[in-house]
């Protein structure tokens, strides 16, 4: 799987309350949720993201609550992939489960500036910075996580596997 887009850069500890503030958690429609993506940090984000972007961030991206509305907001706002130095674990799982690719890349921030065009090859854990002409390593995803992403998320994946009620 390959994804590409322009980089939007954030810092450390971007938490789920800024990704989607609590007051929007009563929304159920992903498109409406996405209108408030990153509102706590940058209200212009949905406008920026609408043609497809890749988020580049520092440590502990997605810390805080278990709200799945956070990766949903990003995905439906146009985020194609999140590259961060590290992720909070619930956000990480949620992103995979809803089919938003997330890759850990320890040095990503020193190699990417806002607006750089990136292409990510998920199977290989490879990030190409086309603007700067360099390649940045990311940690490879285990096979079963790639399968969930390839199927488009956990629901599609379980359907494909044919879940039987035990």
């Amino acid at each position, binding site marked *: 799987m390959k994804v590409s887009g322009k980089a939007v850069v954030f810092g450390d500890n971007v938490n789920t309350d800024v990704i989607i503030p609590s007051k929007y958690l009563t929304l159920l429609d992903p498109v409406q949720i996405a209108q408030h993506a990153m509102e706590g940090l940058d209200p212009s984000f949905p406008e920026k993201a609408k043609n497809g972007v890749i988020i580049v961030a520092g440590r502990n991206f997605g810390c805080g609550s278990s709200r799945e509305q956070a990766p949903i907001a990003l995905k439906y706002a146009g985020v194609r992939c999140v590259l961060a130095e590290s992720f*909070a674990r619930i956000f990480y799982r949620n992103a995979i489960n809803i089919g938003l690719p997330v890759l850990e890349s320890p040095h990503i921030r020193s190699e990417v500036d806002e607006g750089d065009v990136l292409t990510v090859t998920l199977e290989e854990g490879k990030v190409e910075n086309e603007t700067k002409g360099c390649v940045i390593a990311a940690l490879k995803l285990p096979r079963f996580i790639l399968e969930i992403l390839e199927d488009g998320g956990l629901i599609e994946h*379980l359907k494909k596997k044919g*879940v039987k009620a035990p």
Partner: protein
Amino acid sequence: MNIAEKILAAASGREEVKPGEIVEAKVDMAMANEITGPLAIQAFKKIGAPRVWDRRRIVLVLDHQVPADSVRSAELHKIMRTFAKEQRIPLLYDIGYGGVCHQVMVEKGHVKPGKLIVGADSHTCTYGALGAFGTGIGSTEMAGVFATGEIWLRVPSTIRIDLSGSFLTCVAPKDVILYVIGKIGADGATYKAIEFTGTAIHKISVSGRMTLCNMTVEMGAKTGIISPDEVSLAYVESRTDESFMLIGSDSDAVYEKTLAVDIEKIEPQVACPHAVDNVKPVKEVEGVEINQAFIGSCTNGRLEDLKIAAKFLKGKKIAKGVRLIVTPASQEIYLQALQHGLLEVFVKSGAYVCNPTCGACFGGHMGLLASGEVCISSSNRNFVGRMGSPEAEIYLASPATVAASALAGKIVDPRRFSED
């Protein structure tokens, strides 16, 4: 093995597990509230499984926006109720019967030692207070659990926090956990488990242990856990007749590292804006003027917390210009507070007592802050915008520090009030 490893081994039918291994584990209990539940229910329907895996192992709680503040919230509540009915799930805690989800799980006997419990809420790690492996998951993953009763988990490595000594006056488990978060950092335990051990642990009540385990997620931890002892077993036995396996850490269990903490050296602490690990002794930030104070949440909304706050507030008035919101964490605690005369103390002091709800804690439907306002809160997160305006500031502290600060109108060390 340590307790976290043993529980995951038991849940995945293995003799032994090691940190880093991925296991397919069977879940003992699954919990969702009305913020995460409706998405899980939507996703469950998409999977197409006709029935949940075990209708008696699912707990549904209405707590975040109760009673419904808007039609949108009311619709979410309805989705939860309808699902419970369709699937014949008996453990639906509607308003009037429950309270904040984690408090409900513990006090209604759904948390037992040695169990693997997943909750669609990050503070599910609270259940380690009773020796269960509790961990937070998202809604889609919960849909998978609803359908299959199973989940994949990576076995975490464990950081041990070894507690010794006794508490100084006006120091509580909240101060200990804030101190520990300050040392380990907001991402210092990501993907890991935190186990509390040591001689001091046996002196801490179940309520205090819940405070400790509750905030382990603020360091990124997958779970916070304490091996069962007489204190936790007595509590569990008073709450349930069901059987459970007694699992504790072996004496030769392996830890990634150990942080030794002498409680006697800990003074009242406060986490300053806008990070939970921005922790300082209260005395260093004394004098910061406040607009709102909040006592409640799954961190510090229990009877013990309300009793401490009432001790400070008894016969006094909170400072002019400050509003104090008190939210008992559950209907049961509400009743106990009433019976102990605490609610009268709060009301007479000028505090505003609300129904059990998450409410002010997460800036949902009530108790929100305006721009430029400052709040001191007994809850667990002080992120930008957590309790309302992104231009408000939140300080986290113990119920004693919050109550003392409400009286003073500014942040104060509670020891200033302790003599009178």
